[in-house]
């Protein structure tokens, strides 16, 4: 699709204006002080950000907890349960987006709440350590530890240890599939499903060869400069971006990974790498559902009020998860 000629949907155009008017929304225009401030500022319960991100549905109980991680501190968790669900439902781990340097579980209240209620699942979202204070592999380690901890404590959490899924958006999708590969490699918990929402699967310079990167001239939500800035913060000097724990696209073998739903957006520099990863999973024999929303920007599921495809995309995600986790979606 030629992105320059396609008219923007009104909601997407408004989102673009709001984002561009707010310098704190673009990592490539932030200095260290601004980044530190962004990392420590909690999203208020009222105001523009809270409105755009949406709220958890009624009927969702949100609690906070933490567990002792091997790096010495405790990792905060945000846990979503359906108020009327019995225990023993599936356990879904969520990893938030934000380029490995921004964001918090609060950003995902809307979709985590939907998954918790529709699947009668326990959704556990981890506040993993952020770059550049904690560069790769800190986030990967935190997310994998969350998986092993949650699997061991599934009963305490009210979930079923035999039905664990991972999900994530943007950087969180990278972490979700890296965790899935890692669990296979290390004989960790067996995952039943992975939800990869606009996953950055290739953090190398090869992204420049893709058409969706070259076509990303309007830079809605995520500019090519932002992407480079995020990668630089996450990796720092001397890290090989071809390490599969950085770029899962370079994993030697994707066979035996859990079934996946991959969501991609047309107005997103990451579109093509998401499709390529879905193809690679398919070639390895992994059942994949690809949902492509041509008129949506990167991050559209975080803006349910402005991006009209966030509803259908969420429905598709829930349907895929329900089938893999053997529950009847409600």
């Amino acid at each position, binding site marked *: 699709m030629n992105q320059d000629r396609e008219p923007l949907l009104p909601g997407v155009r408004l989102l673009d204006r709001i984002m561009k008017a707010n310098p704190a929304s673009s990592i490539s225009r932030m200095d260290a002080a601004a980044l530190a401030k962004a990392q420590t500022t909690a999203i208020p319960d009222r105001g523009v950000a809270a409105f755009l991100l949406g709220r958890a549905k009624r009927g969702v109980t949100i609690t906070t907890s933490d567990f002792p991680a091997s790096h010495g501190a405790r990792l905060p968790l945000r846990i979503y349960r359906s108020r009327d669900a019995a225990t023993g439902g599936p356990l879904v781990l969520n990893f938030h987006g934000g380029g490995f340097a921004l964001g918090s579980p609060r950003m995902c209240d809307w979709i985590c709440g939907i998954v918790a209620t529709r699947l009668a699942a326990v959704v556990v979202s981890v506040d993993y350590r952020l770059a550049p204070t904690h560069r790769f592999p800190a986030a990967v380690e935190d997310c994998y530890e969350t998986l092993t901890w949650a699997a061991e404590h599934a009963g305490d959490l009210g979930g079923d240890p035999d039905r664990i899924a991972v999900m994530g958006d943007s950087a969180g999708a990278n972490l979700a599939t890296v965790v899935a590969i890692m669990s296979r490699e290390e004989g960790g918990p067996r995952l039943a499903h992975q939800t990869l929402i606009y996953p950055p699967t290739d953090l190398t310079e090869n992204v420049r060869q893709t058409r969706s990167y070259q076509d990303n001239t309007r830079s809605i939500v995520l500019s090519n400069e932002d992407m480079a800035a995020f990668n630089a913060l996450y990796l720092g000097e001397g890290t090989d971006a071809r390490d599969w724990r950085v770029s899962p696209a370079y994993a030697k073998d994707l066979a035996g990974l859990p079934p996946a739903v991959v969501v991609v957006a047309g107005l997103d520099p990451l579109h093509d790498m998401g499709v390529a990863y879905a193809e690679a999973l398919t070639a390895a024999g992994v059942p994949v559902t*690809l949902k492509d929303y041509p008129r949506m920007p990167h991050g559209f599921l975080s803006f349910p009020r402005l991006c009209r495809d966030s509803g259908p995309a969420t429905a598709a995600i829930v349907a895929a998860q329900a089938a893999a986790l053997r529950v009847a979606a409600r």
Partner: protein
Amino acid sequence: MRRVLVTGGSRGIGAAIVTAMAAGGDRVAIHCRAGVQAAQALRARIAGTGHVVVTADLSDADAATGLVEQTVRALGGIDVLVHNAGHYEEQPIDTTPYALWMAGWRRMLEVNLLAAAALAHQVVDHLVHRPEGPTGGRIVMVGSRGAYRGEPEATAYGASKAGLHALAQSLAVALAPHGIAVGAVAPGFIRTEMSANRLSGAAGDAIRAQSPYQRVGEPAEVAAAVAWLASPAATWTTGTVIDVNGASYLR
């Protein structure tokens, strides 16, 4: 008392078929892929006794062999096969890469069509070789309106269901000498747990407006048609495909 195998019987349309057959006095084998909790809960809820839960993953059609053996062992035989299990994926042709397209086609054909053929073969084999003979056997396939109306987002689903209708019709001719009647139902949009998310909002209104009744179908309405096709009265209707779509598509 007849013995009925219902594939995909733990939820949605399948669960309604199980409920209807049990209410009619049949003993039912409720098939599910995995996670037997829902199937066991259903078994506890339906009328009558002697029902069983059987499992098989029909994403490999050869699993049908074991499923029929399992059912014959548990119920002592099979008189009626209802193939309701199905797999649905949306894969628009213009945005789906070739490899995913083909993999999805294979998955849908495997469950929706090949598993039906495999089950039919094994059940007919059982019916023909049982001491009392095959007469009175029934095979009912749960097809889809999409076979006729088109499934633009899920082409493999529509094609597999068209194949399923054709399979039922060919079998009706082939099995008439054995006294086995074969039929199919072609449901339109039915309100199930799995379809609930598509029925909310404006998209839901459009779906309801497909029928002059301004609503979608209920699983029990499909089950009533299946129960009829499985009944002893349904001999002369063999080879038919019953539309169960609230006049949302006429052919």
